[in-house]
């Protein structure tokens, strides 16, 4: 019951946020819409017993990534509204057409393979920190370490890009 209510409310919120993100003229509005969607998705995680992931979603995604987005939007100075006209005449109809097709295809595939929940009487998945952590550090320790390496590389790359100027790097 509760889950249904949560689903309906936050589902609508997520959809509203997504549409705002795509439709809004002002990029700041887009960012805020996306943030709303992310919060809704975090709620969905919790209602699916993925507590740890839900927390991480709020802290990292909505907290850090979207904040970073907003910083850059402000920095670049495109917070002003942008021009709405379409340069590529074929793009809009083509895109809308194929999106409809894609969506229909996915939903129909889902209808064919509709999942209806785990069997009754079995313990549901426990998404606590202990459960996820023990998986991470046992089975998935190698990908874990590699992603750590990946983050270092990304950080170094971002710094290098920041220093890149027309006359050469390092100025």
């Amino acid at each position, binding site marked *: 019951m509760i889950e249904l209510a949560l689903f309906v409310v936050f589902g609508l919120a997520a959809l509203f946020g997504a549409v705002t993100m795509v439709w809004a003229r002002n990029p700041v509005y887009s960012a805020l819409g996306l943030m709303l969607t992310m919060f809704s998705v975090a709620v969905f995680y919790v209602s699916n017993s993925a507590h740890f992931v839900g927390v991480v979603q709020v802290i990292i995604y909505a907290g850090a990534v979207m904040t970073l987005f907003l910083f850059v939007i402000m920095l670049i100075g495109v917070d002003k509204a942008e021009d709405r006209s379409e340069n*590529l005449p074929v*793009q809009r109809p083509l*895109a809308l057409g*194929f*999106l409809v*097709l*894609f969506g229909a*295809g996915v939903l129909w*595939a889902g209808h064919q*393979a509709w999942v209806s929940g785990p069997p009754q009487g079995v313990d549901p998945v426990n998404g606590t920190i202990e459960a996820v952590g023990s998986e991470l550090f046992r089975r998935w320790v190698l990908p874990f370490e590699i992603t750590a390496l990946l983050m270092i590389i990304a950080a170094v790359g971002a710094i290098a890009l920041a220093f890149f100027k027309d006359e050469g790097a390092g100025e």
Partner: protein
Amino acid sequence: MTELLVSAAILLPLGGSVILLFVGKRLPEPLAGVVATLTVGAAFVCAAIAGLDFFTGTGEAVRVDWFSWMPAFGVDASLGWDRLSALMTLVVTGVGALIHLYSIGYMKGDARYGLFFAYLNLFITSMLILVLADNFAVMFVGWELVGLCSYLLISFWFEKETAAAAGKKAFVVNRVGDVGFIVALMLVFSHFGTFDFATVFESAPDVLTTGVATAIGLLLLVGAAGKSAQLPLYVWLPDAMEGPTPVSALIHAATMVTAGVYMVARTAAIFGMAPIAAGTVAVVGAATALFAATVAMAQSDIKRVLAYSTISQLGYMFIGVGAAGYVAGVFHLMTHSFFKALLFLGAGSVIHGMHGEQDLSKMGGLRSRMPVTFATMAIAWLAISGIPPLAGFWSKDEILGTVFERGGLWTVLWGVGLVTALLTAFYMTRMMWLTFFGEPRWDEGVHPHESPAVMTVPLLALAGLSVVGGLVNTPFRTALEHFLDPVFEGVQLAHAPAGSVALTLAAASVVAALIGIGLSALRYRGRVPNETGFPWRVMGRGYYVDDVYGQVFSRTGKLAAAWLAFRFDARGIDGAVEGIGALTRRTGSWLRPIQTGFVRSSAAAVVVGAVALLAWFLSRGGL
């Protein structure tokens, strides 16, 4: 022992040829010729020793295996030494050695002296391969090789454009005949599964139907007609006189052109089963003999008279082997090689003495200046005209007798042969008269002289052979026929008549010859008649056959070649290749606008692909 000698007979001239090809240029002048002559002479000696058994009547046919050549066809490189091939080998190497000796003197001073003898030796090797072959495949190798050597030697003085053209013509016309030969070989293989002579001839009556045998026979005739210059493939032989005279003597009188006759004699088993094919052989021979004799009457070049004479005499041989008188045909082959080689070498001696002059109208009265040449050529003249007891009489008469004896329609061929004998006597006398008798008509500054001994000795030797050569097979003592009996075992042979019929026929041919000589002497005695009027001109041009061939075949060939080169190749094939390139370019420019450079277009393309993939998965009923 015999195998060794037979192999040596081929390998000696081959070795000589190879050595001379490499070092011939560096050897001093007569040495190259001496080496070549010695190899051929040694080959003759080997053949004689190996053939001793045959002469004493005790020898058996021997097979000399060299190596396994094409196992897929069951073909070995092997030689067959029986009486027929022994006889041919002796003729080839014997006459060949004499001609080699003659060439040492004739080719003196030539820039490519050594190369000439290398080619001559190579020719002897090729001819020996042909006559010693034990199966059709090896014979074909020899067949093609002699064609090659003929080309090399005809166009030996290739700086002269007519000589180069003559060599090409000989090769191409031979090729036309070879097509017939090859198809015949294919038929043989498809019916017998082997090329081996012994197997084919023994099982021929069981394997072949008359129809197939006729087909094979006719196709073999095509090949033989090409090689032996019969109608309609004779046109290369008169032009082949562009080559040095020893070449004409060796290849185009004594040996290569006789390959066709030898081949028909060798395949007697097949011709025996196909009377139509054999009859065609004889008819072709008769027609050629008569035709060539008429053309010879109007030639003004001394060598061309002899060329047409050769064609005519080869026609006689074809009459002989076509009428199943294989021994008679081979007999005439042998005697003809003696006196025709003598005639050619003598003509060469005349040309040599006249410093290159070949036109009969510029000769005359050479009798006193070149006595040895005159005497030997006179003997050859009488021999070819069929005056007894010289060689030509016996062999020609045997052919005519065999044909007469067969009766029925063959008597017509006998008549043709008789008329041709008359014409032969006529034109040979004409040639002798215009050359050696009468008042001198030669140009200023020409001093005819007798040729050196190295050239006259072979003339004397050949003259001797022309005198006694016929005695091997007279009606009184048919030694040659007995000699060749084991070869033609199982084949139906025709024989010459004996007794009073033979005497009557002999008398008829002698009378014909005398009439011919008489008419000619009357005409040319003391004057050179003007022979530019209508019949003489047509005959002189060979009834314009060459011109017709040129128009029909050469022109259409050239047109076809031009069309192929410029329309089909340049426009068609090149166009296709370039068209592919142009097509690629056009497709590229047509597809290029897809790359708009806009990121969103690429994204749209990705979505299109995703939709397609999704649709495909769904159509297959689920991921």
